């Protein structure tokens, strides 16, 4: 199995698998970063992802192109984000409980609508997705070339989204204000900033990004929607947000770690038939825990994250 790391083709292949497994996570995790930096702990990423996946499939079929799928996928994910946001930011519902509720509602709704709108045979509901676009020359770079430069637009979008999100948070006024909502909403409030609106905005954007994460699965990877197809990726994205210390780049790296270890375990498995497969399945989680212990260490969430902001409470 060493050839996985030494043979350029196998390595390139591993790299490509890592990237594909990571891209949906990256979108969702970026969403999570925005939400949590604005002070809202959002575990409803899973719900937004699955609704996004359904939305993307429906939109791409109805609109006849993958582009429509992107729009409807983001919209569907954002709608769940909005519902979660109104419950937590305006009504003051506990963010964890509301997140669990939103996940259930999202999972249920996606499957419910799918059953209403599509036949029971996946292959009959094939979705027009994105094809790979190749950049001649660059695509021939060994190892990373094919994965990075002969791929679909969603992967590029994810790769661009990470620095963009980092830039927004670190360098723009919006980013500064958003972070203030998560650190000390009172400071933002007395500065005349609409705390709840900002938070809601962040949560909706988060839902949309998670929706895109779901859309990637449909539009770029498997070209169909199936019930429960996100299979817990939203929770992995939540973990990636924390593992990446609430920073876009960190979260993206954490997603890559999950993707890489999953890619490796899928390759290690069949060469080691006598090792119980569960050991391979947990590899990504163990890798993440070890990374936390060895590399990441102490981390501080945004100070006001998880809290409901009420103006007249001291």
């Amino acid at each position: 199995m060493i050839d996985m790391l030494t043979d350029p083709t196998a390595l390139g292949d591993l790299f490509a698998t890592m990237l594909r497994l990571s891209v949906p996570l990256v979108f969702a995790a970026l969403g999570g970063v925005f939400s949590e930096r604005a002070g809202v702990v959002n575990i409803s990423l899973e719900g937004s992802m699955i609704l996004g996946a359904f939305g993307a499939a429906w939109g791409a079929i109805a609109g006849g192109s993958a582009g429509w799928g992107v729009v409807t996928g983001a919209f569907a994910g954002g709608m769940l984000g909005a519902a979660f946001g109104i419950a937590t930011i305006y009504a003051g519902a506990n963010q964890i409980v509301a997140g669990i509720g939103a996940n259930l509602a999202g999972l249920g709704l996606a499957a419910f609508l799918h059953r209403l709108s599509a036949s029971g045979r996946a292959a009959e509901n094939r979705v027009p997705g994105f094809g790979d676009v190749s950049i001649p020359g660059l695509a021939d770079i060994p190892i990373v070339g094919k994965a990075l430069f002969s791929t679909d637009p969603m992967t590029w979008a994810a790769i661009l989204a990470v620095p963009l999100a980092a830039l927004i948070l670190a360098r723009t006024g919006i980013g500064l204000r958003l972070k203030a909502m998560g650190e000390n909403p009172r400071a933002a409030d007395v500065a005349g900033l609409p705390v709840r609106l900002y938070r809601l905005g962040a949560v909706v954007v988060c839902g949309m990004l998670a929706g895109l994460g779901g859309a990637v699965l449909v539009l770029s990877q498997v070209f169909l929607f199936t019930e429960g197809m996100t299979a817990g990726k939203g929770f992995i994205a939540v973990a990636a947000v924390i593992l990446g210390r609430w920073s876009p780049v960190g979260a993206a790296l954490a997603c890559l770690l999950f993707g890489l270890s999953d890619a490796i375990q899928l390759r290690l498995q069949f060469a080691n038939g006598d090792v119980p497969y569960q050991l391979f399945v947990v590899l990504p989680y163990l890798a993440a825990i070890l990374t936390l212990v060895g590399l990441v260490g102490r981390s501080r969430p945004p100070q006001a994250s998880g809290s409901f902001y009420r103006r007249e409470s001291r």
Partner: protein
Amino acid sequence: MPRLTLDGIAKSFGGVSALDGITLDIAPGTVHAVLGENGAGKSTLMNILSGLYRPDAGQVALDGRPVPPGDPKRALDLGFGMIHQHLTLVDRFTGAENVALATGGRLDRGLVRARAEAEALAAELGFTVDLDAKVEDMPPGMRQRVEILKVLVRGARIVVLDEPTSVLTPAEASGLMAALRRLAAAGRTVLLVTHKLAEVFAAADEVTVLRRGRLVATLPIGKVDADGLAALMVGADEADMITAVPAATAVIDSHATPVLEVAGLDIDDDAGRSAVRGVSFRIAPGEVLGIAGVDGNGQAELAEALAGLRRPVAGDVLVDGVTVAPGRARERLTRHRVAYVPRDRHHTGLVLDMDGARNLILRDVDRPPVRRRFGLIDRALAARRLTQAITEFDVRGAAHGPARALSGGNQQKLVLARELGHAPRLLIAEQPTKGLDVAATAFVQRKVLELTRSGAAVLYISTELDELRTVADRIAVMSGGRITGIVSRAEADPQTLGRLMGGGTARPASDTRTGDAA
């Protein structure tokens, strides 16, 4: 220029009235002081002006036009700017970012501009601030200065300040007062909440006194003196107590074993930088040693180390001649009977989300009599302590609810009641009268002296020289992490202390090393 009118403002919290029928008329171009005991409702009133709180009744008007209630954004747009008693800064932002946040900074350009304006203003006010430092790394005084800059940079027309000078040095405070006068002269309206009567006389044109949520009087400053104001605040019968100057009468036995002996203490700050270097001193039974100095010169780390919250790098600490193990808070509280009034009541002093009674057993919850059989807490005892604190220390509003709901001064009183209530051998007090009203300040100073009469020692850290000269027998000055000199109360004139704070020594010194603390 705007004329500010308040008409029948009322506000209650959970059925408890904090303000009742406040009607005021403030002329443009004046500085208007607002005075009152702790819990009188000053902050509540100011928060209503800034739109943070929505009044239950009444209205605020600017030039006759009503200001929409409970809308901070509109209030800002109309020109209200408020410096809050409990700072509204983002700890993990730099000073400049905090200013940019308040001024609506956009992209990098906004940050640069906000920074430049804040810097210019700081220079004008005589403030030293490091705008590139994170607020969480700043000493309290600097945070206060950032809060002030943040609001003033916005160019508010009505500037509301809620106890802005409680952690400023005298020089900074007078710089601020002068600036307020200039603002008024330029036609702005200034509302100043303070407990320091000197500031009232220095800066204000008019003064309003609140008592228990009601407006007692509004007077031009020329028509009233300090005693008169005190009487208005607390009622004539109690006013005498305030002005009775406490006399330092404890007998200091400088030959007895010192209660506190500190030898060669080196302490690092959170970032691992050297904060205190080679500090040695003794405090005799019955003695109050004051520590003066500009905030951030190692006082905080010294106090924390002595309280067992921070492990010194080197040096010894002896209480009553017994070496105390480094960094063992519990042992200090109980075995050595060290009391500690921390500078930050929100972070260290109190558990804001616990009620008064539970806060009062923080020191000794795990020992009798609070701890009873099977590890049970004696809740009746805690309740009795609260009753006692309420009567003795006059903690207002603490009978029910979390400490969070208390006014700033009353929170401070709760801490003091707990720390002074255990007959300590040694009291370490950082800015213990911060935010206290005049009566409470005098009361605390009396309590400190009472303590010394029982043979206890006190380390009294304050940035206020007047206060130190009232309570301390000797005053040590800290600068750059060192004690640059210790002088007796009699020698402690502002010039000497000022020189020591600048890093000089009392004797024209040869062992002054200022550079190496960095």
